[in-house]
Structures are given as C-alpha cells and as structure tokens.
C-alpha cells in the first residue's frame, strides 16, 4: 500500500499548476464552479495539446503519451481545481478517443485520433433520446443502409455542447427487427454540419445554454463513419461507460465552491467572531472535508485499477454515485452556511465568490442524473458488484 505519489507524478502536478497559474494570471479564465465544461476554448485546448495533455494515456502509435491513468488523474485534478476551460476537448479525450482506439477502424484511428490530440476537432455525445434516458436500449434514432451511406433519422436530447462541437458521437438503431432490442444498435460519428442536422438549444435552470436537442432529418452519413461492429453498439457503449464514470470530474464539478467557502468562513466575521468558530459551521465543513477526501480516494482507486491494466468493475459506478451525491451536499451546505447570502446569483451585488454557491445549487440537480442516475448506478453496483439478481 502506498498513498503517496512518485517524484515524477509530483513533478507533473507542479508543471500543470504552473501552467494554470500562468494562464489564470493572464486572464485566460476564472475559477468558477462548473466552468470547466462550460468554457469552450480551442486555443486553450491547443496549448494543452502542445503540452501533451490530450490523449495522455493513449498509445504512442496514435500520438499519445502512454502515460498512466494516475498521471491523467493528477492532470484532471489540477484542471478541475482551477476549473480550466477544457470543454473543447474533454469529451473527445475522455471518451471518444478511447472508444476509437478500442473499436475504431484503422482509417478512423489514423484520421480522427491526431485531430483530437491536436485539438482540431470537438465532439459531442448523442446517446439520450426523449424516450431513452436511463433506458438506453430504447434508442429509436434509426440508421438505414443506402448504398455507401446510412440515412439517419430521429432525435437526440441533452446533448452537451452540440452547438459548439464539430461532430456528434451517436448510438442509433441499425436493426429495427432485432429480437432483443439491445442487439440492434450501432455507433456512428456524424458531422454536425451535415445537411438535415438541426441543433435546438435547451436552456437549463441555471439559465445557461448548456445542452441541446439534435434532430436528424434524412442525414446522409458515409458507411465508414460507423464505429466498431454493426449492431454491437450497446455493448461497446457499456464498456466505454466505465471510463466515463471513473473520473475526478464527478467529484470536483463544484470544487472551487469548497475552497472559497473554507476561506470565506475563516475571514468573514459575524458579530465580531469569524464564522468558522460556529460549531455548526465547523462540523459541516469537517464532514465535507472527510467526504471529499473519501471521494478522492475512490477516484484514485479507479485510476490505480486502470493503471494496473484492470477494468474497474462496480467501482466506477460506486465512485460516481458517491461523488455526485457529495457534490450535491456541498452545494446545499454552502448556501446554508452563507445564509441569506446563499441565495445570491452570479453577477449580483454582494454575492460572495461570484454567486458560486447559489449557482452550484442549481447545477447540482444535474450531477446525480447525467451519465447514469444514482439509482441506475446503485443497481449496477448491486448486480455487477455484488451479484444480486436482476430486478
């Protein structure tokens, strides 16, 4: 057992921090909860690319660094601590690239992976549909073979960043007659500029245009844009999910709020005494600190497992379920500790730390829903991790 990092890993962390400190000073971004995915900057992503921080764990043959998942965890931990604007490449780096490495054709690997690594292309993920949320098997968007193309028809929803990305990575139905519904799905890469694609914004309750509906009306997609095997898309996605669920981004979406809050209660006085002397405040923040440290251990445990060359089984689901619930408690506790100030939104006069608490309380609704609800994750833990029977 060893809970320390190697000198090299510490060096990497310092390097990332130095980079971010410098960018922060130059005004490239601000530290705001939920900012990491909302801020979309190809320039910033290009700079990260030059550092070798995109595709960090990928094989060298695809332009990667062959770094470990622990290295990537360290990188991500710092990115999230600073809430650096990594929205442009984040999904491609975390999910699209690894999926192509696992399932893509030689051609896809050669054409797409370098573009991702060089921050020349941005991806959105199109899995959910109006009637297929937790129940992905019910996906209805169809792909029909026609010559050297597929014709895509249907609708995706909750597509983060589709209004800014170049491509959308989708799960669609290629065999409407499959006896088992999950055996008729395939994965496609679709150019969002294709004729017949319409992107309609959805404004979330925090007032932000973060996700979209994406409509496909007879969209022609070349056959070579199918990823992996026809009708095996569901299985491919299940494997990809473990990567999606593993990351520190599930723990640190609103991490700045925690640091702001701890600093705030140390300085801010109420009737002459620093707020941190209030036993309730102390108890709450200590509990959050413990929960945060545990979440961090969960995340690093998953990264360590991946680094060992093993796939996290139930642990990725457990990590995400635990961490997203922590983030919710954090945002609620922050608003309560701030009292009346806890209701002040970004941009408001008198708002402590730019209204991060109130804003995060709104965003937090999505934490336990996105990428598998807490309930679905718990079922996965029970069935896959503990061997309990199908419910």
């Amino acid at each position, binding site marked *: 057992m060893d809970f320390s990092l190697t000198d090299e890993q510490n060096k990497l962390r310092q390097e990332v921090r130095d980079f971010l400190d410098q960018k922060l000073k130059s005004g490239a971004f601000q530290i705001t909860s939920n900012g990491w995915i909302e801020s979309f900057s190809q320039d910033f992503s290009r700079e990260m690319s030059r550092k070798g921080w995109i595709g960090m764990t990928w094989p060298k043959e695809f332009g990667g660094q062959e770094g470990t998942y622990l290295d990537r965890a360290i990188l991500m931990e710092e990115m999230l601590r600073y809430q650096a604007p990594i929205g442009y490449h984040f999904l491609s780096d975390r999910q699209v690239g690894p999926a192509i490495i696992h399932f893509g054709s030689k051609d896809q690997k050669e054409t797409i992976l370098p573009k991702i690594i060089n921050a020349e292309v941005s991806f959105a993920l199109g899995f959910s549909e109006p009637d297929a949320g937790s129940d992905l098997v019910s996906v209805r968007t169809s792909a029909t073979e026609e010559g050297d193309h597929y014709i895509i028809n249907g609708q995706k929803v*909750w597509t983060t960043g589709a209004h800014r990305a170049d491509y959308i990575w989708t799960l669609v139905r290629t065999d409407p007659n499959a006896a088992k519904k999950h055996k008729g799905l395939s994965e496609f890469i679709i150019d969002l500029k294709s004729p017949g694609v319409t992107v309609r914004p959805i404004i979330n*309750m925090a007032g932000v245009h973060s996700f979209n509906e994406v409509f496909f009306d007879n969209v022609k997609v070349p056959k070579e844009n199918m990823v992996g095997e026809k009708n095996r898309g569901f299985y491919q996605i299940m494997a990809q999910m473990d990567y999606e669920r593993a990351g520190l981004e599930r723990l640190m979406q609103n991490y700045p709020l925690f640091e702001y809050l701890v600093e705030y209660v140390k300085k801010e006085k109420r*009737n002459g005494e620093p707020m941190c002397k209030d036993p309730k405040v102390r108890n709450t923040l200590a509990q959050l600190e413990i929960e945060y440290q545990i979440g961090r251990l969960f995340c690093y445990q998953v990264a360590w497992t991946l680094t060992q060359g093993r796939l996290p089984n139930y642990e990725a689901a457990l990590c995400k379920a635990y961490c997203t619930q922590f983030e919710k408690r954090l945002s*609620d506790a922050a*608003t309560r500790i701030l*009292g009346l100030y806890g*209701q002040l939104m970004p941009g408001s006069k008198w708002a402590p730390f730019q209204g991060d608490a109130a804003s995060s309380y*709104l965003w937090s609704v999505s934490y336990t829903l996105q990428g598998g609800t807490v*309930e679905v994750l718990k079922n996965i833990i029970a069935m896959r991790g503990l061997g309990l029977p199908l419910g």
Partner: protein
Amino acid sequence: MDFGLNEEQEILKKTAHNFLTKECPTSFVKETIKDEKGYSPELWQKMAELGWMGLIFPEQYGGMEGSFLDLAILLEEMGNVCLPGPFFSTVILGGLPILKGGSDKQKEDFLPSIVEGKSIITLAITEPCAKYTPNGIEVRATKSDKGYILEGTKLFVPDAHIANHIIVVARTTEGTGADGITLFIVDSKTTGISCSPLLTIAGDKQFEVVFDKVSVSKDNILGAIDNGWSVIEAIWPKVIVAKCAEMVGGAQKSLEMTVNYAKERKQFGRPIGALQAVQHYCADMVSDVDACRYITYMAAWTISKELPAIKEASMAKAWCSDAFKRVTANGQQVHGAIGFTEEHDLHLYYKNAKSWELLFGDRDVHCEIVAEQMGL
C-alpha cells in the same frame, strides 16, 4: 381536534386556487420574475378586489377581519402557483407591524390603502450581517432638529423598488440588544435613499437599500421610541408561519407534478412510478408534505387563538425549510433531465424551496429557538 377546514375556508381555498390557477400560470410567473418590476399591477388590483390584501385587517380599515388561519390558507395557494409580487411584503411585513404598533392615524393612513391595493410596503430589517436578531441592527437613527437622521445599509430588502413606504428597523440608542431599536415608516422617495437590486436564486426582488443622511420626522416612528423590537417580536411568529404556509403550497404542487410525471413517463417499458426507488421517493415526499401541512397549520391555529406561538412557529419553519427542499430535490431526481430545463416548471419550486429555506432562518436557526423553548 379537527384537521379539516370549515366551509368558508374551503370556499376561500377553492376560490383562491381557481383564481390563481387561471391568473398566475407558470408562463406568467416566468415572465414576471424576469421582468424588472416583478409583479403585475393588473393582477395586484384584482387581488385587492377579491379582498385578499384586507383579509386579516379589521373591518374599520376596509378589511375582512379574517383569522390568521384564513390567511395561511390563502398563502398556501399563492405558494402553490409561485405567485410573484409584493403580497408578502405588503401584507405581512408591512401591514402587520402597522396594525400591531401603529397609531390610529398611521393605521388610517396605511391600512385602507393596503387593503385597496394602492400601497406597497416593505420591511427593511436585515443588514450586511444577515441576521434577524437585535444584535444584527446597526443602521442608526440619530436625533436631529426635525426628527431623526437615518444612516446605514439594509440588505435583502424585498420589493424595495416598488414600495411606497419602507419600515426601517434602526437603532436610536447605542447597544446590541432589543432596547434602543425603533421602527420608522419612511417614504421610499425620501432624499438619500438609494436602492440597488440583488440577483436572487428564486428571481424574487430583493435590494440593498442605502440610507445616506435620510431625514425623517418623529411622526414617522412606528410604535414607541427605543421599543420598536417589541413590534417585530410580536409579529414575527406570523411572518414565519406565513412563509411556511407558502412552502406547504409549493411542496404540495411539487409532489403532484412529480407523481403525475411518474405515472406518465415510461422507461424500461413501463411507467417509472412502478420502480420501487421512485415509489419510495414519492412516499417520502408525501410524508414530508403532510408533515409540513400539519405542523404549519398547528402553528397557524395557535396564532389564530392568540396563544403563545414562538415554539410552534419555529418548529414549522425548521421542518418546512428542510422538507420543502427535500421534496423539490426528490422531485428533480424523479423527473430526470427534463426537470433541469428552464422550459419545465419544477425549477421554480426548487428555487423557491432554497430561497425560503434561507429567508427568516433555516432549520438550525429555528432549532436553536425550539431548544430554548424546551428549556434547554
């Protein structure tokens, strides 16, 4: 013991429900909270015509002399539709102190005007230290030739931008206790008053109100000099329970929306309401909502009977603060992504729940009061 409403109360409830459902749909709510004014003068007038602003004021001022319980019923319906506007400020925060502490002249000056929907009034009590206790009052009223000079900053003052008058809680004698605090009814257009809007989570209108050498006369004093806190103290259980009544209505509606959604929304080939996890969320929600209702109405009834209600009010606010929030959070979890959108209505309740939890003190604040009342 009687957990039911009487016939008039049933009528009041039904009338209010029908009227508000028609006049205050969520589309209206969403528009209004984005609007700078934050209320509709037309709707305001209609509400006055229904007698709502006068519901609990004496007949001599044009009121209906209803009980506090009646008012709670009305407020529950307002919370049920997220009614925006200055009703709470004007009737509860403005009207009640005047009724309690006002001179005959002040009552005649203000109450009929409130009842008729002509006057909007608010209360400026909290300051940058964000407390509702006497030691949180630092705005000063210094004696001058003509009366008093108000100096200082009030924060989180609701509806200050549309209020004709602001009741200002100020310190006339040095100290940190309740003694030495005086209330002033101040014309909001008096020289030296400036308002800056705050952006709040629920979209309700709150303001920083700065008093820069604001000159007021002795006639503006509400109640006795140095003894203004007693007025606040007297109405405070009503303020708290009035807010709880709104929370009951909001929680009820959140529950209904969620149950309906759970019946309609299908995943895995059947309504999600058949999933045990969803059933348990919903069962927890109805338990929370019923508890909110009973504990709030027990407090409202206690106030109506003019019995001591400090403990009852704090029990209600402590519970509702957590429970309404929990209900909306569970509701969101059942709704999934759709509830996270601005198009949907649930977020209005989710936001109100957080806002109202923080207003007038959250669970911890009120647990401390309950502890004191328990003799701890």
